């Protein structure tokens, strides 16, 4: 029977369409895989089903009844369990305490710890035999924490279990144990929804597959009847091939190497990254979300004190250990989350635009307002920032214009390398075009170099001269100008070998 049916679900986040009519059916005892590129809507749909978001339109029917949950806890009580990537564990408590948290049973007047431990031990042993459930969660590795999170959801005995990228932090052996558990649960009638970016996993464990693109599901494959063809799956994810020939005249305008990075390492997040960036080049960083791209941007901007890296800018050796050092060498960052990282929301546009100048050395005590105002007006013109004057709080601007302010504040200093961390996220089409127009013009005109990370692969394909694909902290592929296409990019992101079409493990 159908445990869950989602019909025509729509969801907007402040003007950006995340879901535009998504459908999903989950049947008892079946493992349904959700696949799609970044921003395709699969995560949003999962969260709506689990009660974390409310849909703007559409209907969710659980066990035959139409439901609308106000929070995940309500959904959990009804039997819908979800395992997120952002863990909801209490680090100071032990494994078994976390697994029963919120649902502890009592023996008489005190807590029944014995039963709790027994229950936890059972589930943990299935996933990771030998893990001591008396350990506190802060002592665990990320993989072990993920296991506890899974154990917590499973022990609530859900009828529908949603696993959102549960294997991201796990090693192969742990994944195998997880799959064994999933098959057990499915056999006992639980419906499971499973997302993963590793194509080989999806093909191995799922009974059927629903593929998302642009907020809708575009294909459903039932592995009982259909064949498991990786090429076909990738084709559905990327959509029909409109091989637009983008006139990239990089060969003419790109100059010598501007920035050369060698052996960049940071903990377990960035591994042995090396690349060269030429003058006047737009180098893209792609790949699935969360593979280390934003961390790489932060690292290049000098944010990590313990970064180990050989960096040279215009043949001069530099250290990228403090933001100030990067900035003085002309490397500036437009951060990913503009409200949190890039702006002072309550301050005026003017204050935001001039801020980096204040931190630089050898500045006068009094702010030369007249001079700065002229410069800000010029910047506002160049970037076409639409605001009711320079003195309005920057929080009143639209997302696109806010982003222009974030870029604008660097314009009066010499920028050699502009790091853009997902600049067009959540921005309307008009502002997006303005933004990229300006960037391309600057690049071609002044020889500024750009490193662009975008979660939307189309942007990367359209604007980049070269494209590096990251996977789990490594650069797995660098696509040269003539190799750049959406299909190639996605294939590289999922580690699907181009020749054979088979997923590489």
């Amino acid at each position: 029977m159908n445990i869950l049916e989602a019909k025509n679900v729509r969801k907007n986040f402040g003007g950006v369409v995340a879901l535009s009519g998504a459908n999903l059916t989950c049947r008892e005892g079946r493992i349904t895989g959700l696949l799609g590129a970044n921003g395709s809507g699969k995560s949003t749909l999962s969260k709506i089903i689990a009660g974390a978001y409310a849909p703007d339109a559409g209907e969710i029917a659980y066990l035959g009844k139409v439901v609308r949950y106000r929070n995940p806890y309500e959904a959990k009580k009804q039997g819908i369990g979800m395992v997120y990537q952002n863990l909801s564990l209490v680090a100071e408590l032990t494994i078994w305490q976390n697994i029963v948290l919120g649902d502890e049973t009592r023996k008489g007047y005190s807590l029944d710890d014995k039963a709790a431990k027994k229950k936890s031990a059972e589930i943990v042993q299935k996933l990771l035999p030998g893990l001591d459930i008396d350990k506190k969660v802060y002592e665990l590795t990320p993989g072990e924490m993920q296991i506890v999170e899974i154990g917590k959801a499973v022990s609530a005995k859900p009828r529908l279990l949603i696993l959102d990228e549960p294997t991201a932090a796990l090693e192969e052996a742990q994944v195998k144990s997880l799959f064994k558990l999933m098959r057990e649960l499915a056999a006992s009638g639980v419906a499971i929804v499973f997302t993963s970016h590793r194509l080989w996993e999806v093909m191995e464990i799922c009974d059927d597959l629903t593929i998302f693109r642009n907020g809708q599901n575009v294909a459903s494959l039932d592995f009982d009847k259909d064949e498991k063809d990786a090429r076909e799956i990738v084709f559905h994810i990327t959509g029909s091939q409109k091989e637009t020939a983008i006139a990239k005249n990089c060969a003419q305008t790109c100059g010598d190497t501007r920035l050369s990075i060698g052996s960049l390492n940071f903990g377990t997040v960035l591994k042995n990254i090396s690349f060269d960036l030429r003058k006047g080049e737009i180098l893209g960083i792609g790949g699935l979300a969360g593979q280390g791209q934003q961390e790489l941007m932060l690292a290049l901007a000098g944010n990590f004190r313990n970064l180990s890296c050989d960096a040279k800018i215009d043949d001069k050796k530099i250290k990228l250990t403090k933001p100030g050092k990067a900035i003085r060498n002309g490397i500036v960052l437009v951060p990913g989350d503009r409200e949190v990282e890039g702006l002072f929301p309550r301050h005026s546009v003017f204050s935001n635009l001039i801020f980096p100048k204040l931190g630089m050395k050898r500045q006068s005590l009094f702010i030369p307002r007249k001079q700065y105002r002229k410069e800000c007006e010029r910047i506002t013109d160049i970037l076409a920032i639409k605001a009711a004057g320079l003195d309005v709080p920057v929080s009143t601007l639209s997302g696109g214009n806010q982003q222009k302010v974030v870029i604008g504040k660097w314009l009066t200093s010499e920028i050699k390398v502009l790091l853009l961390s997902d600049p067009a996220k959540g921005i309307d089409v008009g502002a997006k075009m303005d933004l990229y127009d300006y960037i391309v013009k600057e690049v071609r005109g002044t020889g500024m170099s750009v490193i662009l990370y975008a979660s939307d692969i189309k942007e990367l394909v359209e604007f980049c001269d070269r494209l590096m694909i990251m996977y789990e902290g490594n650069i797995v592929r660098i696509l040269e100008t003539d190799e750049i296409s959406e299909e190639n990019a996605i294939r590289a992101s999922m580690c699907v070998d181009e020749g054979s079409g088979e997923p590489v493990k």
Partner: protein
Amino acid sequence: MSLQKSFQAASANSFFVKYKKLIIAALLILFLFLLGEVTVSNFLSIGQILLTIKLSSFIALFGLCQMIVIAAGGGGLDLSVGYTATATAVLTASMMDGKNENLWIALLVALGIGLLVGAANGLLTAYVKLPPLVVTMAMSQIIQGGINVYTAGKNITGKPSPVLQIIAARTSGPIPNIMFLLIALTVIVMVFLYKTRLGALLFGVGANPVAAHLSGVDVKKIRSISYVVSGVLASLIGLLLLGNMGLAFKDMGSNYVMPSIAAAVVGGVPLTGGDGNYLGVVLGAIFLQTLTNLLVALGWGDAGKWTGFGIVLFLLLIVYVSNRRKR
């Protein structure tokens, strides 16, 4: 859509919204004066008003220390201002001994004490990352202990130099001199905060330390400096306290600490940092002093003062700070 946005922007900019908190503070003061006039006669008179302003000056001065530390963000507060001032007063009283010649030495000593205390506070909060309220409270106790050790067994002697007395205690005609100081200070502070680059950096660091850091600004350094400034200011206020009282005693400054924080909250300084209008703090100080006068006039004395302060602060915290979970 764009018309709506520009309209929003225009009204966001309008006088009333921008100075909302100042207006509220001024209204509160007016309310109290009216209340006083109704319940106690002669409450609303020029003499009374001037006296209130004089008494509230010290709260306003200490409030400046708080404002600077709060504006730098990170939950900053400085509870050590009271005893820093006291320590300076105690140490310099015998140094000056009623003469003007040694005023310069006293100033240097004040500077030294302020720098020492401020640097310690700054280091412990910004670099060791200990909670500011607990650190400055403990520091306050350490200074108090220091004073105890210094004065153990002997009386505190000495008198302030006449210059200090003139500024702090005397009047020019009907107007207390300290009011001139306060007005001058308000102007200087506002200029500093809004027209200089240091002020802009301070507010930036408090408003969004992450954005400030990514723009190349050393957040920890600026936060430490804010405590040093607070400490030095507190020390100098100690000299003024000495001038006002005519002598130094062990509890000189401690009664001002809580009101200084309350004045900042009443004056609309957001406790999370990033913004602040010193005029608001001054109004807040006047409000608190008026409240005290009213309670004293009603015969409720010390008890009423503290209860009143506590309740006012708590209510304002609910209005300005409370962050009910929106799910």
